[in-house]
C-alpha cells in the first residue's frame, strides 16, 4: 500500500480521490459490458456482423475510457478548465462539421469521421460545456463586472442551435435542463425560477402543438390506445418475462424484437435475462454514484468546483433516469442512452470524461474552514537535507 507520507503524484491522487464513487463507476462500466452480452448480439446479427461484435468493441474501448477517466481525475481544477476549453473548441468545430460532412443515419447527421473513427461530437460537448458554464457562472458571481450568465447563455445558444440543426432534440432537451440546473444550483432567485419554469412549460406546450411527432409520443404515453406503443409494450413484457431472477443469460426473446436493444432499451433487455433484482441493484448503484457525487460537491468550498461537479452529476443522473423511466414507461419515449451501460463508443468516452471531471473536482482538497483565516492544508514532510 502506498504510504500516506508518499508525496508522489500517484499517492497524492490515491489519497485524495473519492474511492466510493470510483468503485461505483467501475461497477457500472463492468455491468455495461455484462449487459451488452445480453443485449447486443441480436443487433449485431441483424446488421450481419459477428454476434459479439458490439461486446468486443465495448470491451476494447473500456480500457482507453478508463484511462481517460483516471487521467482526467488526476488534474487540478485549473487544468480541468483548460482541458474543457480545448475540447470545447475542437468539438464545436466537429459539431459544425457534422452539419456538412456528417453521415446521415436514420435521418439525422450526428456522426463525423475523424481518422477513421466515427465520433459523435454532441456527446463530448455536453460535459465540457457544463464545465465552462460552471466556470463562467462562478466567476460572474464573484466579480460583478464579468457577464458570466450572458456568455453562458450565448454559448449554450450556439451549441443548442447546432444540435437542433442535426437534428437531435434529445440532447438539446437534456442540455437545456442541465443549463437550468446549473443556474438553479448557482443560486438563481426563486423569483426567476417561476417565470423560467413557466417558459419551460410553454416550450413543451409549443412542441406539443407544433411538432406532430412530439405530440404523438406524449399522446401515446397518456393514452396507449391512441397509437403504436409497440416498443414500450415489448419493453414492459421484457421486464415481466424476466421476473425477479431473469430467464438466464442468452434466454431472452424480446431483444430480438426491440430495434435499439443495445442502446436505448438495454435496461429492459437486461431485465429479461438477469432479472429485476439485478435491475434494482443497478438503479441503486446509479443512485449511489449520483448522490455521492452531489454530496461530495456540497463539501467543496470552491464555487467553481461545486457548480461544475454538481452540474456534471446532474447531467449524468438525468440521462440515467430518463433512460430508465422511458424503459419502464414512466415517461414519454425519448431516445437517450444509459450512461456507462449502453453500447456506443462516443457515449462511453464522453461519460468517462464527465466522470473524470467529477472525480477530479471532488478530490479532497484543502478547504477553508468557517473561520476563513484558519486553513488546514496537508503539510509537506520535512525534506531530509
Amino acid at each position, binding site marked *: 500500500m502506498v504510504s500516506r507520507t508518499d508525496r508522489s503524484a500517484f499517492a497524492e491522487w490515491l489519497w485524495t480521490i473519492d474511492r466510493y464513487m470510483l468503485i461505483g463507476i467501475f461497477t457500472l462500466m463492468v455491468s455495461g459490458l455484462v449487459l451488452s452480452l445480453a443485449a447486443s448480439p441480436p443487433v449485431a446479427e441483424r446488421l450481419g456482423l459477428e454476434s459479439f461484435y458490439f461486446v468486443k468493441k465495448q470491451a476494447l474501448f473500456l480500457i482507453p475510457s478508463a484511462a481517460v477517466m483516471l487521467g482526467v481525475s488526476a488534474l487540478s481544477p485549473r487544468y480541468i*478548465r*483548460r482541458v474543457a*476549453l480545448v475540447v470545447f473548441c475542437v468539438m464545436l468545430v466537429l459539431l459544425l462539421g457534422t452539419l456538412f460532412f456528417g453521415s446521415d443515419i436514420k435521418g439525422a447527421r450526428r456522426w463525423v469521421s475523424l481518422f477513421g473513427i466515427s465520433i459523435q461530437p454532441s456527446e463530448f460537448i455536453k460535459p465540457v460545456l457544463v464545465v465552462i458554464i460552471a466556470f463562467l457562472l462562478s466567476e460572474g458571481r464573484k466579480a460583478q463586472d464579468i457577464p458570466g450568465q450572458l456568455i453562458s447563455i450565448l454559448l449554450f445558444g450556439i451549441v443548442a442551435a447546432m444540435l437542433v440543426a442535426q437534428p437531435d432534440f434529445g440532447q438539446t432537451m437534456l442540455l437545456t435542463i442541465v443549463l437550468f440546473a446549473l443556474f438553479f444550483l448557482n443560486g438563481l432567485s426563486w423569483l426567476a425560477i417561476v417565470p423560467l419554469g413557466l417558459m419551460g412549460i410553454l416550450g413543451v406546450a409549443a412542441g406539443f402543438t407544433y411538432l406532430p411527432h412530439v405530440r404523438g409520443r406524449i399522446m401515446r404515453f397518456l393514452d396507449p390506445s391512441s397509437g403504436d406503443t409497440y416498443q414500450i409494450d415489448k419493453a414492459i413484457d421484457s421486464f415481466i418475462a424476466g*421476473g425477479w431472477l431473469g430467464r438466464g443469460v442468452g434466454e431472452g426473446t424480446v431483444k430480438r424484437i426491440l430495434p435499439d436493444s443495445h442502446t436505448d432499451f438495454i435496461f429492459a433487455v437486461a431485465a429479461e435475462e438477469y432479472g*429485476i433484482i439485478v435491475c434494482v441493484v443497478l438503479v441503486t448503484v446509479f443512485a449511489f454514484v449520483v448522490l455521492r457525487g452531489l454530496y461530495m460537491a456540497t463539501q467543496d468550498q470552491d464555487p467553481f468546483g461545486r*457548480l461544475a461537479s454538481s452540474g456534471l452529476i446532474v447531467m449524468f443522473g438525468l440521462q440515467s433516469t430518463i433512460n430508465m423511466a422511458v424503459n419502464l414507461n414512466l415517461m414519454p419515449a425519448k431516445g437517450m442512452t444509459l450512461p456507462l451501460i449502453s453500447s456506443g463508443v462516443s457515449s462511453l468516452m464522453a461519460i468517462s470524461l464527465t466522470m473524470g471531471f467529477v472525480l477530479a473536482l471532488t478530490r479532497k482538497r484543502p478547504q*477553508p474552514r468557517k473561520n476563513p483565516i484558519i486553513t488546514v492544508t496537508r503539510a509537506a514532510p520535512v525534506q531530509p537535507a
Partner: protein
Amino acid sequence: MARKADSSFLRRSNVNQKHGTSAIRLRGPGRSRIFFAMTIFVFVYGAIAGRLILLGLQDGDPAERFLAAQSSVAQARPDIVDRNGEILATDIKSAALYAEPRKIPDTDEVFDGLISVLPELDTPSIKKRLESNALFTWLKREISVEQRQAIHALGLPGVGFRESNKRFYPGGQTVSHILGTVNVDNQGLSGMEKYVDQAWLKDLQDLGFTQDRTMEPVKLSVDLRVQHAVRDELRRSMEYYKAKAAMGVVLKADTGEVIAMTSLPDFDPNNRQQALEKARMNRVTGGVFEMGSIFKGITIAMALDSGKVKLEDGFDATKPIRVAGQKIDDFHGKRRVLSVPEVFIYSSNIGTIKVMQKAGIEEQKAFLKKVGLTQKMTTEIPGVARPLLPPKWNDLAAMTISFGHGLGVTPLQMAVAGATLVNGGKYLEPTFLPRSEEDADKLAQQVLKPETSEILRYLNRENVLRGSGRRAAVPGYDVGGKTGTAQKVVNGRYAEGVYLNSFMSAFPMSNPEYLVLIVLDEPQKVEGQRYSTAGWNAVPTTASVIRRIAPMLGVVPDFADDAETIPVSYQNRN
C-alpha cells in the same frame, strides 16, 4: 481562466473577508440547492426502483405461461383425403417431454428414471431444472413412441408429454399444388391447407380445440388415381418434347369439380423450401397465358348463340386481314370461303375474326364475362391470378382476342369456360371440394343455349375425326377437342417457333362427362415431326391421358360406331 484556484487560498480568504456578506450568500444557496437536487434524485430513483418492484410482482401468472408453452406445440390439423377417401395429407404425432418441477417430490428419483430411458438427459442443466421451483420446463422435443411408453411405464410424478404434430404428405409431389404446404407450426401457407385454415380451422385452434382431437377429414373433389395418371403422362411428355412446363386439368363437366390438376415442375410438400422456388409455381391457377386457338370455340359459340351467325354462313378467308399496320393470316390457309365448321376445323384466324365481327364486339365482351374469362376466378385455392385484359378493348383487341391472343387467362379459367361450351351451356365455378349434381344445378348459370352447346360438341368431335385433333382419338371414348398453338411473346414480340401448345378436349363427346385441358409450354419438335404445333404434342398427350383415366373414372366405352357422334337423345347409358 488563469485564476489560481488551488494555490491562493489566502487570497481567496481575503476576497471572502472583503465581501463578507456575499461570500456567505454564495455558500448558502449553492449548498442547499444541491441538497434540493439530491432530494429530487432520491425520489426519481426511488420511483424507478418502485416501478421495477411492481413489475416484478406482476410476474407469476402461471396459467398464462403454461398456455404459452402449450400453444408453441404444433397444432393438429385434419387429414385431407381424396374423393375416394385416400389420404393425401395427415399429421404424424410425436411427443414432447416436459416436467413440472414444483410437483416433483423426489428429484433424484425422477432424474434417475429419466436418464435410464434417455441417457442424453444426464446433464447438470437438466438436473438443475428439475430441482428448480419452476412451474413448467421442456425436457426434450420429439421423442419416439417407444421412449414415451418406457417413461410412462416408470410412473414418474411431475413428468408429462405433449402431443406435437408434424404434417406429412404420403403422395409426395403428386397432389402438391392442390394441397399446398404448412409451416413449422402446422399452419397452412398455400393451397387447400391455407383454405382450410381460413375457412374454419384457425378459429378452432385459437379456441384451443385442436390439441388432441381427431378431426373429421377434409374430403377433396380430387381423384388421386386420376391425378397420378395425369401427372405421370405430363411428366413423360414434358421430358419427351423437352417442354419448359406442362399443365393439366381434368374437370367434371357437369359439376365443375376439379378431378385432377397438375402443374409441372411441381414440388414436394414435405420439403417446404421447394414450394418457394419460382419455377415450381402453380401455373394452372397462378399463371396467365394467351391460350391461342382454343379460344376459337368460345368465339364461335358466342356468335352462334347470338343468333347473328348461322352454321352454314360463309366467311371469306382468301386474303389476310390488315389492321393497324399488322397482318393477320392463317396458318396453312385454305384461301377460300369457309363455313363455320370449316373455320373451326381448319382453325382459320381470318374466319374467326369475321365470325366475331358479324356478332359484334359488345356481344364478345358480354359473353367472355359470362364464361368468367375477364374477371378473377373464385375458388378455394388461394393465389389465383387475375386475367390480363387488353388496355383498350378496341377493334384490334377484339380481333386478336377472338383467336386467343391479347387476353391472358389462367388455364383453370379456360378449362371452366371450355366445360361450359360442351356441358349444355352451364357455367359453374370450379371447386376442389365435392359438389353434388343437385348443388351444381343450383349454382349453374345458363350462359349458352343447349342447342349451341350441341353444335360445339359436334364441331369438337369433327376436329378429332378430321381436323388437327386426330391424334387424340381413343377408341370407344368419343373424344372431341380443339387445338391451340399460341405464339409466345419473347422480348416484346410474338416469336416464331416458340409456342404454348394446348388441347382442350372432352369425352365422351356425345354427352361430355369430363373435360381435359393439357398445356405444354415450349415443346420442341422430336424426330419424325415436321412441326412443333399442338397437334404433334399436346394432342397425343391428351390421348394417353384419356386412355388411362377414362376406365378409372368409370366412363363406359362405346365401340358401336366410333366414327360418328351419336346425339345424346339416342344414348341409353347409366
